Every structure is written in structure tokens, then in C-alpha cells.
């Protein structure tokens, strides 16, 4: 079927034009180094014609001693496209914050030129470097070269998934803790859980330095660690005046937008009632030179977010409102061990932690992990009277 680069892909060719970078051009470029890319184009053109995918369901493949990191993928039309008969994905744990040197990227490219399709995702949804497409017998040699170069596989299946972090203190003045370091530490601490799936379902951890939440921790992580501060917003009055002089309408753009209306402006002086501030970041986002997070920094821990499958989408909810920056790692370890114990024992197959909490009730879950309920955990107390009173509390 492959015909020396002259394959007709009339539909896909239409995706080479236009101002946005073209993935079709990428696949065509990769044909230089991999015959699989020609068959990939052929199979994709078939999908575009028929409006249906042509990949078969999973398949268990991997590297020795690991239970994850490789996603098996097989074509359902291998006779037409033999070079993508197997076309497995490898997930490679990215460095914290997705920082690279050109040399590191070239090393990765070299490995993938020798052993796979030469196609990647930079990066996958969870954050891993994705090597897109290789044969079963290339998995172990790829892995050997990766580890020799200092890289390792990421997570897949019912495991601790590859943790991710925002750019944090590397290049952001709003990071209330060292997200990249924490992400790196958590990743190293749980290598076994990351590579050998031990859980009812996946467990994701994401580290965001402030409540702008650039890695969507509150929506996409079972454990969401979101930086915040406890004391007063740092304020530079001269810089406030400069913003006002340069066209920021402080009353309208800052005070009126504040969710708790805790900022007053009399035309010359900005007064923040910090005890009523909810640390939403709006005023700081508008005037980064004038306002900065406080000095007593740390993070809030939230638990339970996920996409819809199975019982519907969930956002994480507050478990610990504030942990000082230098206690975050220890708290993560302690909390994770308590949550995992309960989830291991009571979680159903393919039940995320958030869904387990929905099923057993937050109060029971808190009992199980040994945390006392506090009002910061809820948006409002219950509005129904069906209370499961405990026997020992009755008269």
C-alpha cells in the first residue's frame, strides 16, 4: 500500500494550509525517518473518509517489571497499513515545569528516531512526553536508551499518574511554594506506585503555585495542591499610583471586581481588608508590580476532582485550608497514605477517590482518614434533615 511517498491523502492535504501550524505537515516531515508515518497518514485518511477510527482496543504491552507507561495500540486494518500494525504509545516522565535544554531534546529525538515513528506529543494531557507509535520489540530497547539518558517512563492505568507542576518559582512571582521541586520530590517518592499500578483506578497529583491554577489542579487532579498565603497582600503604593496614572481604573478594574469587596480606593490610597480577602488573585493579576501575595506562604490541599467518567465530573474540594510551605511534602505523604489506605480497602474497581467520597459521604471519609470536619471544607452546611446520628451521641 505504501507507494514511495506518493500516497494520495486528498482530505488530509487540506489541513496543510492556513495560519495555524499543521499536524499533517508534522506527520509528513516524520516520513523522512520512519516508514510507519506513511501508513499512519494512510490510515488517518481512511478515518477521514469513513468518519470512524481504525485503532483497536488497548492490548497489554510494556517493559519488563513495569505495569504502566506503555499504551498498546494496534491497527484494525493491518493488512492495508502493515507499518502501523502495532503502534504503541510510550509515556515518558517530563522534567518538572517542562523545562529542557536543546541538548536534552536532541537526545530524546535521537532515541525516538532509532526506535519509533519520530512523532511525539509535547506534551500529553497528564503532562508526559508522548512517544507516539512503535512496535512491541522496540519497547525494551527504547526504554534502555531512555534510562541510560536519565529519563524514565510515566504512569498509565490504575497507578499514581505522572505528577505535574506549573512553572512556579522558576519564572513566576506568584508561586507561593516551590511547585517544581515538590512535583519532582513526589514523583521520586512514589516511583513504585507510578510504575506498578496498585490502585482501584488512577490517582493524579498536580501542583499549582497560586489560585490562577495554570495546571488546572482543581479540575484535573485527585490531589490538588494550590499555593496561597495567610498574611497580608504585599502592597507598593507608589506602583499603585503608577498603574492609576497609566490608565488602570482602580475603582472599576480592581475594587469593583473583588469578590468580597475588601478593597477600598479613595483616589490616592488603596486599603485592603486582608481578613476578608479570599486570595482569588484578581487584584494581583491586574497590578503585578503593585500587589503581590503575602510572605506567609503555603498551600491549600483539595481532593477529588476528575473528568466525567463514571459518575459525572467533579471539582476538588478543600481538605486542608493551609499548610505552611516547608511542611507541604510531609503533609502530602501523610495525607496520601491515609487516603490510599481507605481507597484500597473500600474503593470499587474504576472508582476515583472523588467518587468514593460521593458514595460513602464526606463525613465518613473524614472519619476514615482521621481529619476533623471544619467549615472551610463546605460552601454551606447541609440543607436536608436526613442526618445519620451516631448512637453514642444520642441521649
Amino acid at each position, binding site marked *: 500500500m505504501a507507494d514511495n511517498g506518493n500516497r494520495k491523502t486528498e482530505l488530509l492535504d487540506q489541513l496543510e494550509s492556513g495560519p*495555524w501550524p*499543521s499536524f499533517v505537515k508534522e506527520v509528513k516531515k516524520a516520513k523522512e525517518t520512519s516508514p510507519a508515518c506513511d501508513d499512519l497518514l494512510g490510515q488517518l485518511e481512511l478515518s477521514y473518509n469513513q*468518519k470512524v477510527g481504525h485503532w483497536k482496543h488497548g492490548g497489554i504491552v510494556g517493559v519488563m517489571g513495569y505495569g504502566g507507561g506503555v499504551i498498546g495500540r494496534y491497527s484494525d486494518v493491518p493488512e492495508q497499513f502493515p507499518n502501523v500494525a502495532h503502534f504503541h504509545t510510550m509515556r515518558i516522565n517530563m522534567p518538572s515545569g517542562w523545562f529542557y535544554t536543546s541538548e536534552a531534546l536532541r537526545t530524546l529525538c535521537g532515541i525516538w528516531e532509532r526506535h519509533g515513528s519520530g512523532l511525539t506529543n509535547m506534551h500529553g494531557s497528564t503532562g508526559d512526553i508522548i512517544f507516539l507509535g512503535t512496535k512491541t520489540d522496540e519497547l525494551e530497547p527504547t526504554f534502555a536508551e531512555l534510562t541510560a539518558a536519565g529519563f524514565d517512563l510515566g504512569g498509565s492505568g490504575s497507578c499514581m499518574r505522572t505528577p505535574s507542576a506549573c512553572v512556579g518559582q522558576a519564572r513566576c512571582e506568584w508561586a507561593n511554594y516551590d511547585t517544581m521541586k515538590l512535583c519532582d520530590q513526589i514523583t521520586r517518592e512514589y516511583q513504585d506506585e507510578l510504575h506498578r499500578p496498585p490502585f482501584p483506578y488512577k490517582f493524579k497529583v498536580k501542583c499549582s503555585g497560586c489560585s490562577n491554577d495554570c495546571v488546572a489542579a482543581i479540575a484535573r487532579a485527585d490531589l490538588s495542591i494550590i499555593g496561597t498565603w495567610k498574611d497580608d497582600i504585599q502592597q507598593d503604593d507608589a506602583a499603585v499610583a503608577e498603574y492609576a496614572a497609566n490608565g488602570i481604573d482602580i475603582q472599576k478594574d480592581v475594587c469593583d471586581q473583588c469578590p468580597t469587596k475588601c478593597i477600598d480606593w479613595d483616589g490616592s490610597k488603596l486599603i485592603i481588608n486582608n481578613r476578608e480577602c479570599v486570595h482569588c488573585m484578581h487584584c494581583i493579576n491586574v497590578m503585578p508590580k503593585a500587589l503581590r501575595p503575602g510572605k506567609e506562604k503555603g498551600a491549600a490541599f483539595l481532593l477529588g476532582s476528575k473528568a466525567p467518567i463514571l459518575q459525572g465530573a467533579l*471539582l476538588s474540594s478543600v481538605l486542608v485550608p493551609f499548610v505552611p510551605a516547608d511542611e507541604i511534602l510531609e503533609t502530602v505523604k501523610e495525607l496520601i497514605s491515609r487516603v490510599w489506605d481507605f481507597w484500597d480497602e473500600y474503593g470499587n*474497581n474504576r472508582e476515583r477517590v472523588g467518587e468514593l467520597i460521593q458514595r460513602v459521604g464526606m463525613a465518613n471519609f473524614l472519619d476514615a482518614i482521621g481529619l476533623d470536619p471544619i467549615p472551610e471544607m463546605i460552601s454551606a452546611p447541609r440543607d436536608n434533615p436526613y442526618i445519620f446520628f451516631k448512637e453514642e451521641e444520642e441521649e
Partner: protein
Amino acid sequence: MVDMSKRITDIGPPNYEQFLHPVIKKNYGQWKYHESMGPGLLCHTSESGDKIYSVRCASPRLLSIQTIRYFADLADKYCDGYLRFTSRNNVEFLTDNKDNIEPLKEELQKEGFPVGGTNNAISNIVHTQGWVHCHSAATDASGIVKCVMDALCDRFTNENLPAKLRIALACCLNMCGAVHCSDIAILGVHRKVPKINQELVPKVCEVPTLISSCPTGAIRPGTDDNVVDLIEEQCMFCGNCYTVCPAMPLNDPENDGLSIWVGGKVSNARTAPKFSKLAIPFIPNNPPRWPEVVEAVVNIVNVYAQNAKKFERVGEWIERIGWPKFFELTGIEFTRYHVDDFKFAGTTYARSVHLRY
């Protein structure tokens, strides 16, 4: 055979410190403020007075090693070899030399990589694998992203929206792209029940796992010669059964397609994070350019751009004007599918007489 004695395992990722630009390493944790220098260009200033400049360009996420090597060459030429990727698949070149910004920007633009995606622009579309590499995809991902961003490229290279706008695409309800909290979400949907291969089920699936995988209890132990039965009217096309059992395929060329969701956000700025809500229940797959999807997304973006107040994200804007007005302004038809009927659906019913006339 693999020589086990030489095998390296469980080393984790390379430590990030070796990949940091010297100015970043020196000023780690000491950044004081940042300034925008135009679309795609950021300048961060440290307490020490040092500055690091970031030049952000789009990527198609699906990258060949050839293009990654090109980025590496550019990083060598302008940034002493230092670069990073963002959580939305953009590339950021990092330099402490201000004079390198313009030539780098020009070179990227010439090569077809738009520079932008910062502040009140539309950033890159977070998306999934689609027909390129997934078995359960109801649609392609990269193709639709390409078409939508071709139409919205000016919104990437300009910062002229009321607030930032984040678009995400997932090619089925599994939502690897986690589109459930995006300003605008494009979601692949199935609309036909799985076609059960009764012969294959016992060979490739654990039947109890299959039965318990169904969130609505639509899959039951089989009667007569069937291994399992399906109560069709109870199926909500989530595809979870297919994920645990390959003998339950639900891909269907004519009935799979796209839905559009609006108003989600993950940032806590001003208002709490919120889920995206259904805007358009179904648009047919129409490759290679998906004109109906592009038109629907561009329409929502334009109506939002014209009507929202400064700082309002899409969801905040809709909450202010109310959903009836949103449907009126966008011309999107409101249907029975917009009314929730899954768990605790009543939380989305109008339970006040705060009505706008």
C-alpha cells in the same frame, strides 16, 4: 534477551535544575513582577534586577522530531539552548538578551509558528489523540483543532478579548483533555448503543466487571443465548463498557459527532472555578475542515467579545446576562437536551424568580 544486571529502572525524570537557564537558576524564587511586552512576549524581573524574556509560540502538539530539532536549533541560536513547553502545548523560548526577541519572533512567524497566546488572547487548544491514535474516539482531535485555530489565529496573536479565553477538545466522554472546565469545550460524542459482539464478550472480557462498569445499570446478565443484555433506553453512550470490554464497540460514522460546551474556568480569579455547560448538543462529523464546528465556536467567541465586560470570562459573562440571553444572542437553539436529567439534576433548574424580561 535483556541483560537484567545492567537494567536501570525507577530513576524518575531527570532533575529539572540542569535544564534551567542560568538567569532562572540564579533568580529562582526571587521574581518580583512581570510585564507584558505584547502578544506572546513576557518580561519577568527579579528582586536582583535581572530580567528573563519569554517568547511564546504555538505548536500543533503533535510534533515530529524534525520540528523539535528545529526548536532546539532556535534555542541555541537565540536562547543559549534553553526553552520550555507550557501546560497548553505552546513553546516558550527563554533569553536574557532583549535584542534576541524580535529576530526570534520573526523567524518563528516566518516558519509558521504564530507568536501569542498570552493575557487576553485565546491560547492553544488543549486536546486529545482522536483518530490519530485512539480506539474510542468519536471524532478526530488534531484536525478540528487545526480548523478552529486557523479561524481564530488572530485571537491568538492579539490580546483583544475581554479576558483570557481557554478552549479544549476531547474526542470522547473519557475526556483525556479534561474539557469540563473550559470557556469553550468541544467534545466528541457517541449517540448509538454499543454493538455487542456476544461471541467475543466471554473471550476478551470479565463479564461481572463489564456489568458493573455501566453507570446506569443498562448492562445485565444475558438471557437466552446472550452473555449480556443491554437495556437500550437506559444507555447514555458514555463508552465506559467499551473501555473495559473491547466487544462493546460504539463507534458509528454517521451518528458520532461533536457537542459544544461553554462557561467553565479553573482559575479562582473573581469567581470560583466552574464547569462548562452544554451549548450545542450535537454537530455531525464533517472532515476534513468541520465547517459547522468552526462556525459554532467562532460565533460564540465573537458574541462574547462584543458583549462581555472587561475581565469577564465566558462563564462570568453568561451568569451576568443569564442563559436565555446567551441563547438569544448566539442564536443557538435551546432543546430538551439542555435540561439535565442525570444525578441531582435539580441543582441546575431555575429555583428563583430572578427572571429577566
